[in-house]
């Protein structure tokens, strides 16, 4: 593994009396995309400001290529690029906007023109070169902003929610383009977002930031399959979180009592442990009470339908199984099962789908 291109050590940022960022250690290697996910107000933008040397932390240090950053920030800033949520273009032509960073670095007119043209093409906006930035749509402007950053061929690329203001189709095509471009550049990329789907799409590695702290860091699988605590679990999309106590453990299979029910689950726990039973809604299937024994899944919970709400192509069903359970099913299943509030069903899920968090 190459050494980290950029990192933080013991960084603390305070606004007034509130600690907005408190990161013990964070590293990103060349060619790697670290997706930092967290709810609004988690300190994500502050993290970008500190990494981008736009804000000095109260304590701690930023490391660049293994060395603590010191002296002239400008020299380091010229090896990085930042894209913010707003495109923040200058009142000039698209070509001139994309060439701004190169001009600031003293690149010749010819070099600027050649590189700007190449990057406009890579983002599919070469036709906009002569247009005034003020006449662009939101998606076009954000493409220009991304091209303006990547034309610098930065060693470190910092992306602060660059898709947040865009409509869904525009966002999707821009994410596709960016994913392709990121795969080609060797930049160490920090991509900050509140959207876990975006994070999964672009991130090689994930860090969950909450209340200014990195709660968990790892591969997407590690985090989604094994969230470190209740809040991380809720954030990464685990909607059923029920408190319980481990009754017995044998052969790595735990039996947990949650309310009136017994649930079988895999997990590194011991009898007597207080745990949170975590389930992702798409892992829970619903069926009529009679069907309960026919699948290989280990858990069958009798439950009552409480509420049904559409969720895009899916339907979200809230159940009462002695504790709240949320399941995501298809519209077809909804019709087949003739579900309505008050219907009795059996919620089925595999023991392996249950994630236990020790309290």
């Amino acid at each position, binding site marked *: 593994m190459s050494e980290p291109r950029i990192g933080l050590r013991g960084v603390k940022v305070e606004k007034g009396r509130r600690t907005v960022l408190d990161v013990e250690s964070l590293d990103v290697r060349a060619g790697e995309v670290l997706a930092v996910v967290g709810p609004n107000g988690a300190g994500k933008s502050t993290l970008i*400001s500190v990494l*981008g040397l*736009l804000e000095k932390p109260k304590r701690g240090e930023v490391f660049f290529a293994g060395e603590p950053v010191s002296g002239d920030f*400008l020299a380091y*800033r*010229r090896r*990085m*690029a*930042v894209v*913010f949520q*707003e495109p*923040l273009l*200058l*009142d000039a*032509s698209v070509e001139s906007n994309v060439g*701004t*960073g190169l001009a*600031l*670095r003293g690149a010749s007119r010819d070099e600027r023109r050649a590189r700007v043209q190449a990057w406009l093409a890579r983002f599919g906006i070469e036709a906009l070169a002569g247009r*005034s930035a003020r006449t662009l749509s939101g998606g076009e402007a954000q493409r220009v902003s991304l091209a*303006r*950053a990547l034309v*610098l061929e930065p060693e470190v690329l*910092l992306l602060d929610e660059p898709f947040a203001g865009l409509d869904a189709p525009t966002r999707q095509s821009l994410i596709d383009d960016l994913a392709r471009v990121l795969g080609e550049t060797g930049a160490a990329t920090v991509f900050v977002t509140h959207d876990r789907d975006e994070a999964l799409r672009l991130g090689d590695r994930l860090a969950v930031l909450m209340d200014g702290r990195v709660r968990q860091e790892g591969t997407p699988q590690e985090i989604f399959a094994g969230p470190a605590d209740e809040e991380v679990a809720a954030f990464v999309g685990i909607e059923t979180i029920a408190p319980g106590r481990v009754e017995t453990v044998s052969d790595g299979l735990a039996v947990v009592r949650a309310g009136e029910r017994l649930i079988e689950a895999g997990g590194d726990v011991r009898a007597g442990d207080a745990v949170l039973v975590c389930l992702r809604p798409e892992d829970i299937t619903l069926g009529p009470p009679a069907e309960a024994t026919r699948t290989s899944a280990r858990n069958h919970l009798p439950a009552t339908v409480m509420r049904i709400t559409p969720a895009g192509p899916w339907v979200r069903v809230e159940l009462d199984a002695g504790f709240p359970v949320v399941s995501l099913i298809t519209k077809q299943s909804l019709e087949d099962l003739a579900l309505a509030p008050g219907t009795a069903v059996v919620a089925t899920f595999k023991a392996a789908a249950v994630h236990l968090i020790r309290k």
Partner: protein
Amino acid sequence: MDLIWDGLKEAVSLIFSGDAYVYEVALTSLYVSGLATLIAVVIGFGLASLLVFRAPPGRVLALSAFNAGMALPPVAVGLIVAIMLWRTGPLGELGLLYTPTAIVIAQAVIATPVVTALSVVALQSVNPRLRLQVLALGASRWQAGALLFREARLALLAAVMAGFGAAVSEVGATIMVGGNIRGETRTLTSATVLEVQQGDFETGIAFSLILLAIIFAVVGGLTVLQQRRSAS
């Protein structure tokens, strides 16, 4: 009506006959007010960028002072500058009273708050996050300042125009510190006052018309510049 009509005719003939006196007065006005505007712009842009980008303590107080300064009575400015430059005054040894330099100083004092206050508004109208973005693109402090001034160029040009307008149309302080000496400190405004006091309305009208023509030419020129840039 005859008076105005005669005045207009006289004005036109004075302007187009190449009357040395008229041109001398017009040039003095242009020189003095142009220089005063330049000084006001240098100081005003500097103060505005300090107030907006550095946000020093006491910023609001300073801003209030500059805003109030836009309504600074020229006569009061003239009086203060005159006292400062008076033979026995603190700057009396420089011997500047009744020189074009004295008028430049007075007009610069009048125009500076105008340019400063309007430039602050101009720079504040630029998205504050744009400064972060520009720094993130690798701009030094000076480069960032230059880019943001460029971004606010339309509103900054308006500030320059207002400053020039305040300087060139000023008369009270001009007479007080300049003395209205023919061939030295007589400007279009002070000449107009003199001619009207002497009952020579035709010449007075001529000077006023030339003043209006100059203001129109300068401000019009700046406006063309402003609008052409904004269209590009």
